[in-house]
């Protein structure tokens, strides 16, 4: 009798394991598929290429992980990224500040966007979606106004140290990867190990219960938006260093992938909550798909359409997986 009784739970736990790791199976299949289509997919140079191309999406994804962990969403991460890039380039070009000051000013630019979001969402109680959508439009418009219609601001004579943020290396490891690694570690410590991280998850999972427990919910949400803005700005610094210019509205390109990576990552977590390793997996998966499709020599536009479909499918898959588990 006891053996019979334990059978369904065994099947159940097997299914749960598949649900959690099902996405990894998909990732594995994709890797095999791309490698068969083009063996150079697995070459070290290409793998480094994938990782280094994933740095900016990863940074934006980390910012989004924090905000989604709080039960909110931030559609203006791209604006924060652009502001980081714009503030730094303008400080370097027009004011000739040293590179480290430019970094600080760039991060302050992204922080500003986060502060506005926090104000709108926490103070004025606007839903995070509509509030950050408004900031998204205002931020885009401000960039157009500032650049007289969206032309890039380029600055060829970047200080070497600043340029190295994107292209330099330290003991053979690209600096941009080091920056991303540092942020991954920092976010991991914040969300998975720190006292604040516990509070963040409590607010995101059951905001009212967190409030009853006496947590300062408003302040925690505000912190999340501000921190996300500052983080996204780091992505903007790297982007501007890479191209040696500020490209208005460039940040918006990262928004959808960041959201997708967070939800894919959340579906892999035991409790279905956003988490840093999951986001990392999600970002690398999307970067890999983009790279693999490129290597297959597909038309640029076809690639866009395919990656859109893969995005929808991956999200749908992760939602189904998550639902099956709960």
């Amino acid at each position, binding site marked *: 009798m006891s053996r019979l009784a334990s059978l369904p739970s065994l099947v159940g736990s097997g299914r749960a394991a598949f649900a959690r790791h099902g996405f990894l199976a998909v990732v594995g299949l994709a890797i095999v598929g791309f490698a068969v289509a083009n063996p150079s997919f697995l070459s070290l140079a290409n793998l480094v290429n994938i990782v280094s191309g994933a740095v900016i999406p990863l940074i934006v994804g980390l910012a989004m992980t924090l905000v989604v962990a709080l039960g909110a969403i931030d559609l203006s991460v791209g604006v924060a990224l652009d502001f980081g890039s714009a503030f730094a380039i303008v400080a370097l070009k027009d004011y000739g500040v040293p590179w480290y000051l430019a970094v600080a000013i760039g991060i302050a630019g992204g922080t500003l966007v986060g502060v506005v979001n926090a104000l709108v969402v926490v103070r004025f109680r606007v839903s995070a979606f509509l509030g950050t959508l408004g900031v998204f439009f205002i931020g885009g418009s401000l960039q157009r106004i500032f650049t007289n219609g969206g032309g890039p601001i380029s600055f060829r004579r970047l200080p070497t140290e600043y340029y190295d943020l994107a292209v330099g290396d330290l003991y053979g490891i690209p600096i941009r990867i080091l920056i991303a690694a540092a942020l991954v570690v920092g976010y991991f410590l914040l969300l998975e190990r720190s006292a604040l991280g516990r509070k963040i998850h409590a607010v995101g*999972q059951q905001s009212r219960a967190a409030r009853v427990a*006496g947590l300062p919910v408003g302040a925690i949400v505000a912190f999340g938006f501000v921190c996300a803005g500052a983080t996204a700005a780091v992505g903007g610094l790297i982007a501007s260093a890479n191209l040696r210019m500020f490209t208005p509205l460039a940040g918006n390109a990262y928004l959808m992938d960041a959201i997708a990576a967070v939800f894919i990552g959340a579906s892999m977590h035991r409790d279905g909550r956003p988490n840093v390793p999951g986001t990392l997996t999600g970002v690398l998966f999307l970067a890999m798909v983009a790279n693999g499709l490129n290597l297959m020599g597909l038309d640029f536009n076809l690639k866009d359409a395919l990656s859109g479909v893969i995005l929808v499918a991956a999200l749908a898959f992760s939602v189904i997986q998550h639902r099956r588990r709960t």
Partner: protein
Amino acid sequence: MTEAKAIEPPGDAPDILSLDGIAKAFPGVQALDGATLRVKAGEIHGLIGENGAGKSTLIKILAGLYTPDAGSLTIGGGRVAAGSPDAVHAAGVRFIHQELNLVPHFTVAETIFLGQELAGPLGLRTGAMRRAAERFLKDTLDADIAGHRLVSDLGIAERKLVQIARALIDGKARVVVFDEPTAPLTHAEIDHLFKAIEALGRRGIAMIYVSHYLAEITRICHRVTVLRNGRNAGLLERVGPEDTGRLISLMVGRDIGHLYPRHDHTAGAPWLRVEKLSLAPHYLDVDFEVRRGEIVGLAGLVGSGREELVDSIAGLLAPARGRIGIGGKQLRPGSTAAAARRGLALVPRDRRNDGLVLAQSVADNINLASLDAVSTAGFVRRDAAARRAGESIEALDIRPRAAATAARLLSGGNQQKVVLARGLATGADLFVLDEPTIGVDIGAKAEIYALIERLARDGAAVLISSSDPTELIGLADRILVLLRGRIVVELTRDAADLDRLVALTTGGDATEGQAA
């Protein structure tokens, strides 16, 4: 209130509805054990019982929402399959739930006709629906409500009448079940609702009236079925106001007492002080204090303003006027974080939604409000956190003894202990407990009572808000009775007996209420 009932009792009319020998068990609880409810055509039949007596389970079985383990349901002489909401609806049973469940931006006419709209070739016949709705409200419920008004602009009583009209508009209702229909209403509004109910009775519709308000039960019902511990405790015929005492004794039985660890407390310094606190229309000019080492009870029915008052003290709801002080310091209103900093711990009534972060582990929940104590430089020392959680689990006998279990998997009683453990871990010295034993089985109840008793003995100030009068009498040193937003009387432990407390909270003792 001694005048004759507005409609005659049905006498020897046949039963139009009968639930016979109903049994229903939930994990750990036998909610119903052979309960019976028989209703005659044209009568208003009261159904009463304490929390946990099985009233709501019986109603849900009647509604087809639960399938009974045993027993039968007969309506109008025909057997009706249990567990089928559609079959019950087709047999002409309608439910007026406590929740209004209306679309706020719909008009009265739209609300009443939703699902059976009048439409012609040119679309909805708005005018015809409005007129029909107004006529129906007037004829059937004796109410004048304009059909074009929005639900969000209606008073609560008007919304209740619209809700009733919606349930009855198809004209096929034979039995109407009212679940606590008067809870949010004022006296004048209740009179109006009763007029409507009596108008229905004159049309030969049978009604089942579920309520805690005994004064209303004795005023409007012809017969009353009393449930206790899932069984029939009695059936009273020709009920009148003089029966209140009998109803109370049937409801509560006489075997309480051993549940409660009676100790005498030595009250210390005044700790929680509430002054002229008001939030119309919920509560008005509330004044009281709770001393250290003292347990103060707060009694009052649903809708008496008790919930809002507790929420305001805990910082969940900002009061409109008045002051709250803890330990001599003024509290910033409307902030749970400020209250927590002053050493207040709240055990909320809605445990599942408000009490715990259900997806997180027991350990995380215990430490949630005092993470800084187990952290160094902002990082949680996982061993320290686990150790403290383990100690709490041990001390409060939380089962299972596994700190990593997700909180949602615990039983109600153990969840409640986790909420208490969280408050204890913060070193709180003011505990506000809102319905601390709701949905908790009898064994866990005793343990929770012992814990509350220990809190007071250790010098904390304790405020217990409860809809269970026996609990308040068993635990509290003083009991404040809230009736329709005002504290009408304060009972000391010696003066508090069950009959008197029930009478006071139900408004059954009008003289006492006015004197205070």
